[in-house]
């Protein structure tokens, strides 16, 4: 993006983009803007300084990384980070997927203070409803949806875990038909309208294919809808931690453990096979880098426990799951991005309706 020098806040920055998209996007192949939302913590700015060439444009931080294009030449990749809310950054860029993959993604992958903002499947449905009720004539040209029993009933074989990708001009009707028939709800949608073409998905990425005021308005409207739950998730993840506290009750200094563990409540009963597929899925994914060791698994009612490492960040936690929930016990260098990313993996690969909260010990009786 070619942004004129200036001191911006996020809104003003967006205005510069949509006021003169021709100038801002001049020379850019795709002519589209991508917005990524990141949960952040205090050290995020220093982290960018360490890994990029940075420049302050008022409330916006420009950061430039490098990537290799298809011809093998090294090129700069430009990104702009602004504050949407405390602890929530919006990164805007016009770079290609390849540049994003090489230059932007590694940031959050290894950082202890930045993590991609996941959107809970339920919030995503609300976002979709907002778009559709605001624009009667909004078309859906493409979507991906998956089975989430708590959000939709299915007429056909409701027990089957399924995922459907659809392309077609009648996507809006199809979405409803698939939902009624198969109980699937969308996790990625491409909207088309006279003036607007925008794509949203549950991993916190928004693609504005038409760069105009309307697209940005939709983006901000949708964000305001999910922000509460997302910041709550951050709050939960930040509280999941393990510390050794020193106490001096007598004449010795001794340690007592202070652990706050997390819990992911499943929306549907999870079977051993699903748990195994989840492990496989994280292994085969390009984006995730979790390893599972010390695994105990038994079918029946699910008895599953393992030690999980976030290989990118080196954080370590233990999980133990029943059919109903999975407890997360932090062990070593456990920071919120690892936990948020793990939760994102769970909602994408295991149970779309799962919710993460702080575990409070309680009698099971």
């Amino acid at each position: 993006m070619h942004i004129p020098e200036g001191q911006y806040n996020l809104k003003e920055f967006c205005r510069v983009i949509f006021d003169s998209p021709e100038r801002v996007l001049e020379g850019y192949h795709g002519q589209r803007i991508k917005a990524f939302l990141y949960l952040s913590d205090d050290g995020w700015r220093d982290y960018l300084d360490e890994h990029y060439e940075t420049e302050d444009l008022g409330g916006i931080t420009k950061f430039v990384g490098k990537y290799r294009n298809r011809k093998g030449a090294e090129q700069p990749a430009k990104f702009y980070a602004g504050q949407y809310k405390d602890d929530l950054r919006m990164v805007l860029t016009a770079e290609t997927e390849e540049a994003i993959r090489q230059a932007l993604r590694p940031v959050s992958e290894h950082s202890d203070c930045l993590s991609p903002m996941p959107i809970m499947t339920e919030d995503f449905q609300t976002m979709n409803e907002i778009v559709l009720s605001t624009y009667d004539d909004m078309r859906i040209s493409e979507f991906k949806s998956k089975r989430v029993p708590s959000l939709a009933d299915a007429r056909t074989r409701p027990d089957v875990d399924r995922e459907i990708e659809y392309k077609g001009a009648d996507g809006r009707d199809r979405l409803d038909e698939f939902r009624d028939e198969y109980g699937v709800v969308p996790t990625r949608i491409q909207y088309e309208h006279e003036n607007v073409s925008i794509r949203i998905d549950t991993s916190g990425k928004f693609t504005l294919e038409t760069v105009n005021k309307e697209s940005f308005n939709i983006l901000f409207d949708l964000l305001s809808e999910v922000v509460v739950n997302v910041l709550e998730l951050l709050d939960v993840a930040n509280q999941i931690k393990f510390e050794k506290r020193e106490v001096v009750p007598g004449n010795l200094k001794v340690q007592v453990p202070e652990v706050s563990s997390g819990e992911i409540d499943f929306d549907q009963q999870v079977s051993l096979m699903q748990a195994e597929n989840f492990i496989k899925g994280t292994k085969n994914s390009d984006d995730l880098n979790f390893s599972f060791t010390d695994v105990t698994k038994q079918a029946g009612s699910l008895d599953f426990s393992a030690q999980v490492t976030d290989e990118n960040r080196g954080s370590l936690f233990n999980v133990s799951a029943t059919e109903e929930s999975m407890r997360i016990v932090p062990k070593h260098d456990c920071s919120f991005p690892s936990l948020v990313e793990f939760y994102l993996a769970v909602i994408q690969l295991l149970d779309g309706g799962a919710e993460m909260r702080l575990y409070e010990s309680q009698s099971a009786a």
Partner: protein
Amino acid sequence: MTNVDPPESVPEGQETKYRGLYGKCVEHKLAGFPEQSKSENLREEISVQRQHRKLISYSIFPFVQGRPAGYKFFTAEPLEELGVPNFDFLLWNLDGNVIFGEAKSSVPASADTVVNQLEERKEIAENHKEHIEEEYLGSEIDHMEFVVSTYVNHGDKIAKAIIEEGAEFITWVVDAHHDELWIRQARPTSFPDNLEADEPDAMLQELDRRHTHDMSALNGELDRVTTSFGQADVLPTAIIVDQLRVVVQARRVEGRHPCVDRVDIESYVSSSSLNYSEERVTGIVDDLIEAGKRINFLSEWDDDRADLKVVSNYTAKDDLEQVLEDKWVNWRIEDMKDGLRKECEERITAELGRQKQLNEFGVGLQEAEVEEES
């Protein structure tokens, strides 16, 4: 390793004979060696150990996460540093009450042997009360209780044996399927003969008394509490292969080489333990590295990038965990085979020695002397 060179004790001129006899003996012994089942047993041993460690973890979790009746998890394997039989965990409520806990992931049919073992450990713990006060807590112990924790399917059996033996242990049971810990549900299904009381009500009361903690708040707060696998990853007296998992956890990858620094292992060990002295952590790490080298899982790395290399072509942690198990099993199997070879060596040496001695002196020799020579 088969050493066909005869030991020095073999008389001159007998070397060829020795080789022949020794070779036959080894061949015979190895042919009869049930390698398959031995290695299955060893893998089973690893699995039992894992079950045990996880049971400890499930048992202490409520005291790591919270503070039921003020009790916190204090340390795993108290008194281990003294080399005496010890319990698996120690809980403490900071007001002078302690609970020693023993985890039994399985209970044999004759559960009374377990009870006897527990009684012995209890006595040792009581005898070392002062040591715990002075070296661990820094304050006095007012009240000690003893707990045996087991998986839910063994609860009744052990509870019954405890009552029958007239012992005083409280049974906790862990239901790993539901991640629950129960402290009052484990009661014998029938009244043991020795539970003396005239009235059924009184008997029930007595059972209740024996099966619950003196501190009623603990009973109330803990019964059927949700629990989890979480802490206690390194137990100093666990079999070494289970402890060595910590090396897998601590490994990093340089180029294509999985490797680890001593200080990383140390940091993992110390974050998995509570109230171990620095020396004890150092000792555990020393033992780990030494054992890792012995089974050819670790080797010194003459490279600036790390102290030690993990001997494997794999880098993924789950693969490394498998490599670790395989190496340990192989090492144990080879050790058993070496034992057989040693037996052959001793037997053949003794045989040849005896022949010579007999030839020379025409009298028998005591076997002990021959063995000393070999």
